[in-house]
């Protein structure tokens, strides 16, 4: 087993390095777009519509003459915003519920799990559709819908892993030595399920980015003039014959963001899970 520190090991982990680089690229694009884009991302310039990529417009222009490169940069903002908040909601509430369920067992566990089953009956998208039918489309409702969907997922994953951990002898030993359920949950169970949660959180962040894109594609998420990769794809779909490239760039941007997050999660899993490390 390696005795090196986290950063020394991180430098030798290709998943972590590539993932971190891609995530930094997307985060950098979002940050850059706050202070500078080649053109204002929502600026309509119809005389220059559907231009091919050139020195003036790196990725060309769309059907309304907007600069695609500027739109891609600005689109990163919404993706990151939705991902961070939606996963945050899921982790905070879901992990707490999962730990309570695994510690309390019995009626409490059943109740929490039944409620999570119930929430699963409304997948994020279906829920967003119901929310928008009721309260109107927009980014805030999209974040709530995706975030709420994350709660039962984290509850379920936490409980499943926690139950496996709680069946082990060292939990019995901790209980025998007089530790209470809260101390056991935080000191023994949580550290043992954390690697699973980290992997899940990165997958969920990625899924949140995908879900935001899907909702915006359907017209339920980001509204004009907000720029979103999903909305760009929906506009591009009508121009597949004239300008197929418009359907390529936003998708690539989504792919880079999601790929980066997932690779980062994989890398972190390798770095954080002591059992995996020992097995090497």
């Amino acid at each position, binding site marked *: 087993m390696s005795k090196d520190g986290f950063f020394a090991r991180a430098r030798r982990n290709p998943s972590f390095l590539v993932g971190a680089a891609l995530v930094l690229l997307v985060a950098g694009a979002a940050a850059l777009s706050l202070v500078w884009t080649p053109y204002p991302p929502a600026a309509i310039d119809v005389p220059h519509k559907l231009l091919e990529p050139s020195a003036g417009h790196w990725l060309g222009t769309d059907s309304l003459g907007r600069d695609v490169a500027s739109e891609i940069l600005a689109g990163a903002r919404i993706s990151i915003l939705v991902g961070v908040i939606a996963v945050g909601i899921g982790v905070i509430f879901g992990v707490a519920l999962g730990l309570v369920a695994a510690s309390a*067992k019995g009626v409490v566990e*059943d109740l929490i799990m*039944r409620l999570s*089953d*119930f929430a*699963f*009956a*409304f*997948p*994020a*998208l*279906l829920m967003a*559709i*119901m929310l*928008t*039918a*009721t*309260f109107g489309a927009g980014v805030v409702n999209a974040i709530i819908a995706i975030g709420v969907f994350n709660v039962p*997922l984290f509850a*379920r994953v936490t409980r*499943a892993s926690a*139950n496996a951990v709680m*069946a082990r002898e060292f939990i019995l030993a901790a209980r025998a030595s007089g530790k209470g359920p809260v101390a056991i949950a935080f000191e023994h169970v949580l550290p043992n399920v954390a690697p699973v949660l980290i*992997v899940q959180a990165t*997958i969920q962040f*990625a899924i949140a980015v*995908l879900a935001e*894109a*899907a909702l915006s*594609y*359907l017209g339920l998420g980001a509204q004009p003039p907000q720029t979103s990769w*999903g909305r760009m*794809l929906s506009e*591009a*779909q009508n121009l*597949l*014959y004239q300008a*197929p490239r418009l*359907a*390529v760039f*936003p*998708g690539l941007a*989504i*792919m*880079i*963001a*999601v*790929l980066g997050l*997932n*690779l980062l999660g*994989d890398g972190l899993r390798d770095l954080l899970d002591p*059992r*995996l490390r020992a*097995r090497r």
Partner: protein
Amino acid sequence: MLLYLLQRVLLLVATLAFASLVVFGVLEILPGDAAQVMLGASATPQAVAALAHKLGLDQPFATRYFAWLAGIARGDFGLSYAYDSPIGALISDRLAVSAPLALIAMALTAVIALSAGLFAAQRRGKRGDFAVMAASQIGLAVPNFWFAILLVLVFAVKLRLAPSGGFPGWSAGFAPAFGALILPAISLGLVQAAILTRVTRSALLDVLGEDFIRTARAKGLSRRAVLWRHALPNALTPILTIMGLQFANLIAGAIIVENVFVLPGVGQLIFQAIANRDILVVEDCVMLLAAIVIIVNFIVDVACAAIDPRLRRRAA
């Protein structure tokens, strides 16, 4: 097992009842009078009152709720306001497209993911593992609707091998109808398979790291026997659980992909119903999808308990 099953069935019924209550309740929190919303702001009060009466909206909540439930139990889903036809027939028409789509996609997912995950786990750290993981990373990162658009771009716009969308109907014969579902099913199934492949691989690797696997190997069992008889059954619980959860995603994904391919499925019905403010249709469709997901997850729970006796002893 019988006690466990009884317990689960009771919970299933309770969950379904709870879901139906919330789905129905959404209509209540809808801002404004539902009949007013349907007819728009310009409708006369008489027209609104007439529609409200026709839809039974002037009845108390409990009366309408139980009438709705009793109707569903009889197979009567009510009348669509916009289509002026029975909702049951509308939905079953759309299910003839959506259900095969979901089943083909799920079958694709399971076959691809289980074989790829098993393949990769056996070759941990080797080239085959790396190739599968790289492919699944790409698959995970591709939004299904973008993949669907790219499929249209390649197979319809460039190669002209397939129609860019639409559905000829099953009356046009099996081959053309099935053909229209292939691209949508691939765009749904491949993306789902990427997730399930990772779950399968990591579940197997978790189990393979356990002491009883080392014991099994030490007592002389072959690598293959350990994998099939000891590792796979123990890894199946998380795999099945995720598959159950994915089914909900699959149904939601189908809504988007139906949109890309202009398929007349349940997803499209929901969208049209929302655009038309046809609330009873939205309600019935959402309830139906919710019921499917709840029942699928119930089956997963029972299947997990059948595989892993520890689960049912703990629950009972």
